């Protein structure tokens, strides 16, 4: 029995490692493409600014800027499809149900309400989260919505004739407005939530280094013995484990974004470079 349990644990660890590596790859694609899309998209949106003109000229003109924008858009769409495929593989093949935790339920609304009460001083203690918080789910779905919307509207703008055939001319007409205004919304969201909020509110985003590493842990799985970069090898003890308000992982979306309540520090974590 002990041997069987050990084999089972090893298999699950291997799966966890595999999924985490895929998650990090997705995160790298998303972060990179979002950054490029923002840098090449905002000068087009605010083209009257001298900074935009300078950037456009520096990039080699609008043709080059748009080419880079389109390539980055392709990478973003690929990252989205990659994530979707991985979710399907995790659920259907690997039988890992953790991704399903990102589906909002009634408890999330209750926790959101409790958090608002806490913010307003009507409740003394913050809601303890032992799973993806309502805010992490919101973040996940905002980014998922953004990827789908920007990808679809971008494709419609790139291929307006085919889009008009498939949908309607009116919708193609509206996509420019959708693409342009949604971009502002998404950039504002990413800046505020992932840079400012994550930096200012350690209670919600404990693993600040996750914005660079893209690492996440899968709920229901033992924490995999992942080779870690030396730079993120030694998180502060306070960040590593807090049984009362533990939210391991982070709010980054392309990884599963799910967390696991760590009951104890997993033994035998190895660190690259040690």
């Amino acid at each position: 029995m002990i041997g069987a349990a050990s084999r089972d644990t090893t298999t699950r660890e291997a799966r966890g490692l595999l999924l985490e590596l895929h998650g990090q790859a997705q995160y790298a694609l998303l972060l990179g493409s979002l950054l490029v899309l923002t840098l090449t998209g905002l000068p087009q949106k605010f083209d009257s600014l001298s900074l935009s003109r300078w950037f456009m000229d520096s990039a080699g003109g609008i043709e080059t800027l748009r080419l880079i924008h389109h390539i980055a858009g392709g990478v973003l769409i690929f990252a989205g499809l990659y994530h979707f495929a991985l979710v399907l593989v995790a659920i259907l093949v690997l039988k890992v149900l953790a991704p399903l935790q990102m589906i909002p339920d009634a408890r999330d609304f209750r926790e959101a309400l409790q958090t608002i009460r806490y913010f307003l001083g009507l409740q003394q203690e913050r809601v303890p989260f032992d799973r993806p918080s309502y805010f992490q789910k919101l973040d996940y779905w905002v980014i998922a919505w953004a990827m789908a919307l920007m990808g679809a509207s971008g494709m419609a703008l790139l291929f307006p004739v085919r889009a008009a055939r498939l949908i309607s001319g009116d919708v193609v007409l509206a996509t420019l407005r959708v693409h342009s205004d949604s971009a502002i919304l998404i950039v504002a969201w990413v800046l505020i939530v992932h840079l400012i909020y994550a930096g200012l509110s350690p209670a919600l985003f404990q693993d600040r280094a996750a914005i660079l590493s893209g690492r996440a842990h899968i709920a229901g799985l033992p924490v995999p013995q992942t080779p870690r970069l030396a730079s993120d090898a030694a998180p502060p003890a306070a960040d590593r484990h807090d049984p009362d308000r533990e939210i391991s992982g982070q709010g980054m979306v392309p990884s599963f974004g799910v967390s696991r309540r760590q009951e104890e520090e997993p033994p035998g974590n190895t660190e690259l470079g040690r």
Partner: protein
Amino acid sequence: MSERQEPRMVLACGRTARLLLALVVCSAFAAALVLVGAKRGLALRDQPAPALDSSAQLADARVDPNLACLDCHRDPSLSMTFPNGDVLPLTSDIQAFRQSVHGDRLDCIDCHQRHREYPHPALEVRSRRDYARAEYEACKRCHFENYTRTLDSMHFDAMAEGDADAAICTDCHTAHEVTRLEDSPIKIAETCSHCHDDVYQSYAQSVHGSALREENPDVPQCIDCHGVHDIASATTATFRRASVDLCAECHADKKLMDKYDISSRVLKTYLDDFHGKTVGFYQKQTAEVWPDVAVCSDCHGVHDIKAVDDPESSVVKENLVTTCRGCHPDAASNFPSAWLSHYEPDINKASLVYLIKQYYLVLIPVMVAGLVLNIVLDLWRLARNR
């Protein structure tokens, strides 16, 4: 003794009288010489440069210095033949010249300086056109600024590339019957038509050309779009990029457009839409790139622009999809609805675009404010709990 003295006295008086008479005659002769000489000297100073050989000619030259030229060039049979066989009539219509803008300012030799001498020096040109090209630079002696502008024109470029027929000053203004073209806008278009007849015929049928023929001063004629002396090529990326603003000079002029019940917001609505947005990028960047996106003339036509309610207009609803297919060959019949047709979205026109715009106008500030409030409250509670 007294009888002998009287004849001596008579003799002395006679000698004195003769002497006085001689002096008077000499003085009169000298005075006459001085007067005649002075008069002749003045007459010579008034005389024009060419030597005249008769008193009649002298008198005529004082009236009109060109008359000496006209002695020959009045002859209707006077002409010259160039080595290539071209014949140039040399008969001058002095009356027509006098009615030109130069008539009371210039004489023949002011422009034809090399023909000041007679016999005229031999010409070293092979054709009538070569002669015109050799002579037209005389214009720059007075019109240096405009001549300099022509050096930047596509006509000069064509000439530099060996096109002997490229327009020179006298092709548009004529040589001897120069009139003020701005006094007659239709005459400008007709002047251009001498070389660009196909374009003129197209323009004459357009909404602008037909109005010009009705002497409407508000419509553009050739030089309003192409310039006057520094006429740039209309096939360059620079011209294409600037063509939008060219149309906007009139079509964004509210006062002028109100006169004809035409929207003056067409430039703004264009720049807010797909094509205009891209053209705006091209206009702002310094690199010279051909804007491969629709500008005004791609949809409305170039010289054959019709009124938007003209059944033959390329942008009238029935013809619009055909126009779209000029750039989008696979465009379906519903494709034109992907274009705002210069309308500004409102609840009645392009309501989907309008509603999306309003949605984001509310959503973006609400979301940002909500997130900032979230952060502030979170920090406030963290500080308070400590």
